[in-house]
């Protein structure tokens, strides 16, 4: 039996050894906002936070999470960044967008007024194949409305 704290809720569940956090979030907890796009830690679509720090849930074995608080996009639905992304048109197909917002939320929590350079550095791990990057930068720059 495994215990996980996700978005402030505690869950007790069984998961096979070797299961990734992304797999458990999506398949066991139904939190499908976390996307798996490469499943090998190269694209950032599966980004979640551990105690506020962005991590790649596809590379994280669920049994190593321990008592860290996991935050997924479902826990950030009311974050002003969500509105900022829509306002700036920073989503096209949208498959990478939840991961982008989870990364961006960690960025602005640590640095509420990031420069363009800091945004490009902080967000370089999240690939968007549609190329919404200019709009993502705009959304993060103007995230407080």
């Amino acid at each position, binding site marked *: 039996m495994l215990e996980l704290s996700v978005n402030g809720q505690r869950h007790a569940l069984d998961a*096979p050894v*070797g299961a990734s956090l992304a797999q458990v979030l*999506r*398949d066991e907890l139904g*939190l*499908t*906002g*976390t*996307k*798996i*796009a*490469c*499943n*090998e830690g*190269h*694209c950032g*679509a599966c980004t979640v936070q551990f105690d506020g720090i962005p991590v790649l849930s596809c590379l994280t074995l669920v049994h190593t999470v321990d008592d860290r608080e996991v935050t*997924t*996009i*479902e826990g950030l*639905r009311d974050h002003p960044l*969500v509105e900022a*992304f*829509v*306002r700036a*048109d*920073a*989503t*096209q*197909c*949208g*498959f*990478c*967008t*939840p991961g982008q*917002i989870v990364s961006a939320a960690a960025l602005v929590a640590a640095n509420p007024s990031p420069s363009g350079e800091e*945004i*490009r*550095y902080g*967000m*370089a*791990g*999240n*690939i*968007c*194949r*549609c*190329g*919404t*990057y*200019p*709009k*993502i*930068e705009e959304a993060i720059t103007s995230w407080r409305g």
Partner: protein
Amino acid sequence: MARLIRSEKEVEGRYTEQWIVVEEDTLEQWPEGPLDAVGRPARRLDGLQRARGEARYTADIQLPGMLHAAVLRSPHAHARVKRLDLEPASAAPGVRAVLGPLNEEIGYQGQAVAAVAAETLDQARAALHRIEIEWDELEPLLDPDEAVRRRELVAERTQERGDVELGFAEANVVVEAEYRTQNVLHNSMETHQAVCEWEGGERLTVYISTQSIWGVRENVAEHYGLPPDHVRVVCRFMGGGFGSKNSAGDYTYIAADLARATGRPVKCALTRSEENLDAGNRNATLQRLRAGARSDGTLTALEGEFVNATGWDGWLSSTGGPMEMLYGCENVRIAEYGAKLNTGPMKAFRAPGFVEGTFGLECLIDELAAKLGLDPLEFRRRNHSDSDAVDGRPFSSKNLLECYRRAQPHWDRRDEVRGRSAGPWKRGVGMASQIWYGGGGPPSYAWVRLGADARATVITAMQDIGTGTTTVMAQIAAEELALPVDRIDVSLGDSARGPYAVTSAGSSTVSSMGPAVRAAAADVATQLLEIAAQRFDLEQRSLSLRGGNIVSADGGSWPVEEITGLLESGQIIGKGSRGPNPTGMRVLTFGVQVAEVAVDVETGEVRVERIAAIHDVGRVINPLGASSQVEGGIIQGLGHTLSEERLLDPRSGVVLTQTLDSYRMPTIADVPEIVTELIDVPDEHLTNLGSKGLGEPPIVPTSAAIANAIRDATGADVRALPITREEMLRALREASERRPERVEAPAA
């Protein structure tokens, strides 16, 4: 009234002539410029769903009892299956069905051989390892030129107009060069995948990540011999396609076969590695080009031999298209070959052929302009074609000269940009023109229903592949009904819940669907006014819709709800369809991009610092979404130009780049300043909207504009994509070894 016409149908530059039943398009175009909803920036209707992770993609579909498929793929590029034993896999834990052999002769690495369905994905993957297989390995054919010599061709095509020899004889200057472009991969964030579920043996539901709901329906119905109406195809949200998801694929039939064998729904999703092997690619090309011009810059002849590395399967995209179509040159000869190779089949990729062909042609044009000592922008103006260069047809609209005019201020920055060169960093400016399709066509249908609450829903079984067409359709309906956009919903993504809609390929969704949606909304508006005329005892022609009200010529005004309220549970239903394209006219999109680059001549590093994109795509419905399309196209073009390449082991044909760290796509850190300008003038001959497509045009000129900027900065002629440091340093070495060339004397 329905009308039967014989018409040319175009998808991504491929024309077929066929009978088409169309309805007349009787609506007059709206006036130019921003209206109430159309032409104004609009938020994506489904933006919140996407941003909050609520959007349900095929990857998120979980059906009760659903099994997972895994596919055994060939490790060899060319081989025969000598022995295949699936028995050990069927006995593996969790396995419910096995399938194979799917192919006996293997034509490329990653081609499907066998498949397994199991209770969990891990079990399915584990079972693959138990499959026993023996191979006869064969020599792979990997060299496109060799394939042409051996006549191993998927297709070939030659085109000639005028007298090319005479044209070259008349030229004062001739340039000749060989260009190469690489294989690039779509790498959509959501891999190709489908979930299939049978109802009995006769009805099949396919949830699939696709650009073509109706195309998949047709493919699957034909494959299983089912009436098309017994196949339901659902794609509510999809995670990118870029041309690679225009039809059903192996994964679709594998899921459906395994679902039929087990009586349970089955999901078959490609892994990222499989996506890099068997999901299509933009084929590599070899372009041997020659151009001649008179001293005044008039092009006298263009000639090109284009070899596409098509792969094991696919079609011959027109790499010679830009050479044929972009300039008003009288003498043109092109030969195009599609080499059949032991590599993964090509698929359409955002303006297939034209992206590759524009790189070669527009670099060559700049070399020619340089030899003549002519300004590249002026050279392009002088060779502008006022009617279709191929057959002299008039254009439905063409504002390329206006694009050039608007490019001038960006072009005029070059002295200042060059002046910012410092140390090893040389700076320069380059440009390239764009020509491409995007006019769309019939058939496409939409319904609009208006309820008692004066909210309307657009219903059509189209797909939104992420370009924002959902929002565009809502804006069009809102404009016609004079309602705010937030009073409009759009129901799409399900072949069982709406009429036929065009495929989202060839920049055709807005240009095909938009006029149908407007016609359906106009049908509703007419009915609404008919009812209002009866209710208020007024002449219908004295009534119109404005700002959510019904207004009469004599100054009366009533909220629309006063009439819709009478409906109670009733609805006003309107239907609309896409009318024909203008006969005898060529419908195309145009544009120009101006790139600014910095090149470190010591290390060969290239940085793109700014790109200005000016395009003519007719009326723009949503300027916000349109700018996103332009930026996205340019950023994909940037990857194509500088970093992306599917690398093959040259002996075995094995793909070396199967992950997203080895296949290098642009990140946010690679993006230059992008300036978007759209001409935004309706095409007066095209439909009731005057809008063309915008998905593809922005990627077309990017690589040539960058390469030409590199020449401006350094004097080096880049000839191959991607422009790696090796290619950059090679071009710099070649430039330093080259003797200054002399402009030939003008002909007598």
